[in-house]
């Protein structure tokens, strides 16, 4: 139906460029959030003796709570930033 040149209902090259760009931004943001969350909770919850390759009960529940608290902090700071209240 549609062709590469973008006639008819098809998105124009510029729109496509922007959509690809926005999808990429969104993905990058989520991946970076996930990576920082994983690092932070590893440092806070996982014992560094590295004797047993299983996560024990204490580590597992620490990780669950850590993810939840990290998510809450993300939400809190997101609200703060979007409130637009001048920080000075």
């Amino acid at each position, binding site marked *: 139906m549609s062709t590469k040149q973008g006639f008819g209902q098809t998105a124009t090259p*510029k729109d496509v*460029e*922007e959509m690809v*760009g*926005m999808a990429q*931004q969104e993905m*990058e*943001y989520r991946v*970076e*959030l996930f990576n*920082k969350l994983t690092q*932070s909770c590893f440092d*806070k*919850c996982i014992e560094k003796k590295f004797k047993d390759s299983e996560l024990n009960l204490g580590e597992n*529940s*620490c990780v*669950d*709570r*850590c993810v*939840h*608290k*990290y998510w*809450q*902090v*993300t939400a*809190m*700071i*997101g609200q*703060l*930033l979007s409130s637009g209240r001048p*920080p*000075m």
Partner: protein
Amino acid sequence: DNLSEADKLRMVTMIDQLQVRDSLRMYNSLVEKCFGQCIDNFRRKTLDKQEESCVRVCAEKYLKHSMRVSLRFTELNQGSMTPD
């Protein structure tokens, strides 16, 4: 300067996208920093009042700090001061 209209638009779009990306990175760094500084207790899964207050103050201080750095940094870049 001798760019076509289409190319100018492309540069503007590129700069916009970089600014969105940098804002999102700053957001991620701010969360990581204040989480790291304020949260050390994982006996409950929700933030207590003290943790919430610490996170809020940390984020507000970070933003004020960042704005001051930005101001000073811009002054230096505009050559209003010399590196003596």
